[in-house]
């Protein structure tokens, strides 16, 4: 058996469909050929999926009992178009009620916390009618700045 033939038999060895004679030949070849031996090890890493029988051992997955075919068993992920839309009124009702409650609460809080201003904006910004001289004007504008030597001394 040459290398090409040996590699063609990997799958048969994995699936146990090779005849005893071919199997022995292949194993003998793998013992003597380092490259094919390595190629088999690489092959073995994907073979459980690509060449395995794919019958899940009991230990792997606990499978539910096999069902008979039924159109009603359409998987959910494929059913978006054709499956009758299952409306859930209770859920929507609850969500709407919650949204309405939040809105009412927010609106009443805003209303109750708002106060009518006692004075107009113009009045609030205007300076009251007092006698303003240079000193008080300075105080009003920058009271923290000392203006005179006495102030500085004090």
């Amino acid at each position, binding site marked *: 058996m040459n290398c090409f033939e040996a590699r063609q038999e990997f*799958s048969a060895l994995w699936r146990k469909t090779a005849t005893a004679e071919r199997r022995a030949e292949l194993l003998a070849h793998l013992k003597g050929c380092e490259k094919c031996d390595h190629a088999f090890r690489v092959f073995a*890493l994907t073979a459980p999926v690509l060449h395995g029988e794919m019958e899940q051992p009991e230990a792997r997955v606990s499978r539910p009992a096999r069902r008979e075919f039924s159109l009603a068993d359409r998987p959910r992920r494929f059913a978006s178009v054709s499956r009758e839309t299952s409306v859930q009124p209770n859920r929507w009702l609850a969500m709407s009620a919650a949204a309405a409650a939040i809105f009412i609460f927010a609106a009443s809080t805003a209303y109750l916390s708002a106060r009518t201003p006692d004075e107009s904006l113009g009045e609030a910004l205007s300076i009251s009618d007092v006698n303003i001289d240079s000193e008080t004007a300075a105080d009003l504008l920058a009271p923290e700045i000392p203006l005179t030597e006495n102030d500085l001394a004090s």
Partner: protein
Amino acid sequence: MLGLRARSRAGWRLSAKPDEELIAEVLGGDTAAFTELAARHRPRVERLCRRFFSDEEMARDIAQESFIRAYTALATYRAEMPFGGWLRAIVVNLCYDELRRRRRRPEELVGDFSAPEVQWMQTANVASPEEIVGEAEQRREAYDLAHRLLDMLKPEDRTVMVLKESEDMSVSEIAQTLGWSEAKVKIRAFRARQALRKQAERMLATGRNR
């Protein structure tokens, strides 16, 4: 005889009524006949889906969806090709679509291997070929790691690999099933093999170094 053996290996079961007769009954209004048809092909269809997806539930869902698509499109089935081949085309296209729908695909193998996975990689490094075959049948991690390797392939590459390696389909059969050119199938198969070899080598090296 050869054909019979090939059929039985692929999961076909001989039944009193051939597929074509059951299909005629379904088209005549006997929907129960489709139950028998589905039961006959289900093991093969599920096995094919499991080669695409490690998630058992996903594999079963796609198998189920395949039967529903087959049922609804049964009037378009022409007896020139076997029903199994026609059904397989539906399954493969559904699996391919699902693979494409999954946007994210790992570019590299993630290095966090579990202890049993490392043990399996070490076995693949040092055990004899017969021991490797025997161990792989017993180990869930061998199956999981194989899926992780295949998950890195592009959907096109993975589909070609599964059809070529697992289903023993020829390039022209794959091209016909997927509606691609033969050149595209060949290129995809070549790239898939290269990518798999590269990652498998890395995996073996991980097993050697630990």
